[in-house]
């Protein structure tokens, strides 16, 4: 019986170690996520938007690299649609991240700058707008930008 208990508890201990490591790498790392919104470009049609972000959670800054996935981008509370665009650099709707359909499909690795090409469902007129980026782990990054 003692043998059975020892084996059972060893299995339980292994699972707990595995679970704790998964927690730390997953949802627990939300506390370490740090994303900077570098640039928001609202194009002249007032609905096409390019959002450039920079993942600051690098080993140099935090002691560890924390990759993240953007799940949604909101401007003034309305979600942007991540468009496919065109792979042709000479095209007007050229999108360097052509393969990306959903934001989350493109991981933002530590130290990486990335531009998301998006479409707003309503025109973004002149003035100051609020932008919120949500990540897969549940962090919210907020900023403001101006449209001339």
């Amino acid at each position, binding site marked *: *019986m*003692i043998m*059975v*208990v*020892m084996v*059972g*508890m060893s299995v*339980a*201990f292994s699972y*707990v170690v595995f*679970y*704790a490591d998964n*927690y*730390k790498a997953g949802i*627990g*790392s939300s*506390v*370490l996520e*740090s*994303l*900077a*919104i*570098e*640039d928001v*470009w609202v194009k*002249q049609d007032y609905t096409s938007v*390019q959002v*450039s972000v*920079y993942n*600051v959670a*690098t080993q*140099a*800054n*935090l*002691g*560890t690299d924390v990759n993240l996935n953007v799940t949604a981008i909101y401007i003034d509370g309305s979600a942007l649609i991540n468009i496919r665009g065109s792979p042709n*650099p000479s095209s007007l709707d*050229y999108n*360097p991240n052509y393969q990306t359909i959903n934001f989350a499909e493109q991981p933002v690795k530590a130290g990486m*700058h990335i*531009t998301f090409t998006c479409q707003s469902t309503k025109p973004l007129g002149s003035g100051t707008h609020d932008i919120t980026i949500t990540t897969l782990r549940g962090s919210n990054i907020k900023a403001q930008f101006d449209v*001339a």
Partner: protein
Amino acid sequence: MLKKLFRNRKGTAEVIGTIMFIVILMFFFTNVYLWHDAATKDMNELYVKKMNAGMSISFDSSNNQVIVKATASDVKLSRLWIDTSSIHVYANLPLNLYVAPGDTNALTFTFNNPAPPNSDGSVIVDSPNGNTINVRCAYDQSVRFTIVNTLGITVST
């Protein structure tokens, strides 16, 4: 009484199991708590670094120069954005481009020999010449410059 209790081998496995279960629970919560504590400390250190990484950027339109100064501690620059009404382009700055505090250590960006931007929106940056860096980019009167450092601080003209 005590001797009897210790000689009685019934339930030993249950006692060992219970103790190990409690030890495993304590291990889990201690492990996660200490890790979370260290992670929060790392983030707080990053906030402190950000607070100490003051920068200023100014555009000298008469000389077509952008001047970046560090106002607190050393800052390591990452990108310079050049935004006009028709296009937003960026210059990926050389690695290990530090700006030390003080007017004499200010970094000057010039914009000679403009060239078209690359397909990804980046522009060509010449090798630094002392505290001067030439960015091969044309811009119009509506230009706005934004400097980004490696801590994610952005400052615009």
